[in-house]
């Protein structure tokens, strides 16, 4: 799709890189046998809400720690606003972190926690007082300014941690799974709050999560990581609709993987049906390929297949309120899941063992790298 290719790299923001991660590797262990980051390169733009998404142990925290300066990279370099900051100590980098467990200073009040960074920067007393008040207003915590941090709730601690990291006006804010300790309701609230803070402050946010929904709803762009590598970087829509490889597709949302044949920019499924237009990612040659079809991009009707439709047999029908999912078996033996929204009328006409005819929406076929 030429249209998506255009959306990926708008020329205007190309120059406005905030953090440039260049070929960073980080090895741990006495024999450097643990490869936490493996040649990671990514350019994070100014004012963007950038999310690192990936399974546990894939290196998200390590990448944040390298950017913050807590962990020296084994190889590679790091630029901030065009300046090489690889060798600067954490206190010399205009980057602040919101820690997963908040790491609020227990021996200080809420206000003193927020003032800490400003004090260390040697700001005048009056400025510090004003800034702390401003920050308390920003996170809506004015009444609790003199409380101890052990005497406030988890959500409130979260806000204090945010205010503390924002007060020194860093260029970049790093957030390591800041919402994972909160219950679902508070979590939804804080997601909105975080987005509001980001647009009000105009800061670059680098956000870590392993919750795909959180990543999709909050981010401007997402980097999907696995085993120390960044697999794909793109907008939530690109990542979801056009994952570059099987891992990304599998990690985000539900997927159908089908065998197909590629020739030029036309894909023919082994299971039959018509041909589909799709852009092959770099390094994928004509011939046998693996493609992705999201369940909601395939629809089925009862009856024998005709024309460009795929013939299938219904194996299971799953009703889930707003939608009905069908597990279908294609004539190649492959399985295909479809998900169709439920209308107000009486339920589905499908029964197990029935014949079904499947239509795949134009543009719904994505060619995967592997």
């Amino acid at each position, binding site marked *: 799709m030429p249209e998506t290719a255009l959306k990926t790299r708008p020329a205007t923001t190309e120059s406005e890189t905030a953090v440039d991660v260049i070929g960073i590797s980080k090895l741990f262990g006495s024999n450097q046998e643990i490869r936490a980051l493996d040649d990671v390169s990514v350019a994070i733009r100014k004012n963007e809400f950038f999310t690192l998404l990936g399974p546990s142990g894939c290196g998200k925290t390590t990448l944040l720690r390298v950017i*913050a300066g*807590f962990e020296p990279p084994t190889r590679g370099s790091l630029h901030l606003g065009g300046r090489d900051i690889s060798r600067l*100590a*954490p*206190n*010399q980098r205009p*980057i*602040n*972190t919101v*820690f997963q*467990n908040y*790491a609020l*200073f*227990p*021996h200080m009040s809420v206000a003193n926690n927020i003032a*800490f*960074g400003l004090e*260390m*920067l040697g700001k005048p007393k009056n400025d510090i007082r004003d800034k702390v008040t401003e920050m308390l207003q920003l996170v809506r915590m004015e009444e609790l300014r003199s409380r101890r941090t052990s005497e406030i709730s988890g959500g409130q601690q979260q806000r204090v941690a945010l205010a*503390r*990291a924002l007060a*020194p006006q860093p260029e970049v804010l790093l957030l390591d799974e800041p919402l994972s300790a909160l219950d679902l309701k508070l979590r939804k609230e804080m997601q909105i709050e975080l987005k509001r803070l980001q647009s009000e402050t105009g800061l670059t946010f680098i956000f870590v999560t392993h919750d795909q929904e959180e990543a999709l709803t909050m981010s401007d762009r997402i980097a999907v990581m696995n085993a120390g590598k960044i697999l794909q970087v793109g907008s939530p829509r690109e990542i979801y609709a056009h994952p570059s490889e099987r891992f990304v597709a599998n990690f985000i949302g539900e997927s159908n993987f089908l065998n197909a044949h590629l020739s030029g920019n036309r894909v023919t499924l082994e299971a039959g049906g018509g041909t589909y237009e799709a852009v092959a990612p770099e390094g994928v040659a004509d011939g046998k390929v693996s493609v992705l079809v999201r369940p909601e991009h395939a629809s089925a009707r009862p009856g024998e297949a005709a024309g460009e439709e795929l013939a299938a047999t219904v194996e299971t029908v799953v009703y889930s309120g707003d939608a009905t999912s069908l597990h279908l078996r294609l004539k190649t033996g492959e399985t295909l899941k479809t998900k169709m929204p439920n209308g107000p009328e009486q339920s589905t006409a499908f029964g197990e063992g029935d014949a079904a005819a499947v239509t795949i929406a134009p543009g719904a076929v994505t060619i995967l790298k592997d």
Partner: protein
Amino acid sequence: MSDTTLSGSKIETETVVPAASGKKAPKGYSVSTLPGFSIIAIFTFFALYAPIMILVLYSFNAGTSLAIWEGFSLRWYAQAAGNERVIDAAIRSLILAGSAATIASISATMAALATTRTRRFKGRTMIYALINQPLMVPEIVTAVALLIVFAWIKVMTGYTSLLYLVAAHTAFCIPFAYLPIRARLETMDDTLEVAARDLYASPMQVFRRVTLPLMWPGIIAGFMLAFVISLDDVVITEFVKSAGQETIPTYMLGQLRRVVTPEVNAISTIILVAGAVLVSLFFWVSRERR
């Protein structure tokens, strides 16, 4: 006698730190249901505290006997307070314990930082063992060794002062100060220090503004433990001291060789009360802080 009272407070202070993070016994099981549990507990408390009670009681005896009660009086307190040698020994004991505990706490703080706030290095366990060595070596051995070394230095330099005692006491106080400080550091979340670094604090500022205030209860516990241990010491003091350098315990020991009067009880009671006040003060301070 003072030995019993002081080791009593030792146990109390030592449990301060682990108690903060102590695990609760699983529910539904209580050792108190074991047969004879209460009887043994009562007997143990009796064995621990009855002698002390008697000691305190007889410090108020009007007569000169430690066994025959002749009525209530404060005469032995008055006598102790008016006794030049007691006052002299008391002042020396306090100076000695104060200096030894201070130096020991500072060294122990540095040692604890070095063994918990650095990357694992080779020989760390070895260093840990070395720091705690005075707990393992019999006191009498240390005493004799110090006697020989100090005698040698005295002959070479002709220098005599309380410094020999301060050095000796500092040495055996370090492990006692080290243990609570290390325990405190180990339970302390080190992301707090990382967070301070992240908020533009230099390594020195991190220490002053975050590490030190947070480890302060541990340092106070370590100091008090060291102070009490030093105040209580007889063996090493007896071997190292020069003529006339009596501390309260060595003075009392000297007295026992002559006439024993309830004056000894009075002094012990004062030490006991002072120790109890110190420990309560510590609990109060650490409660305020948490």
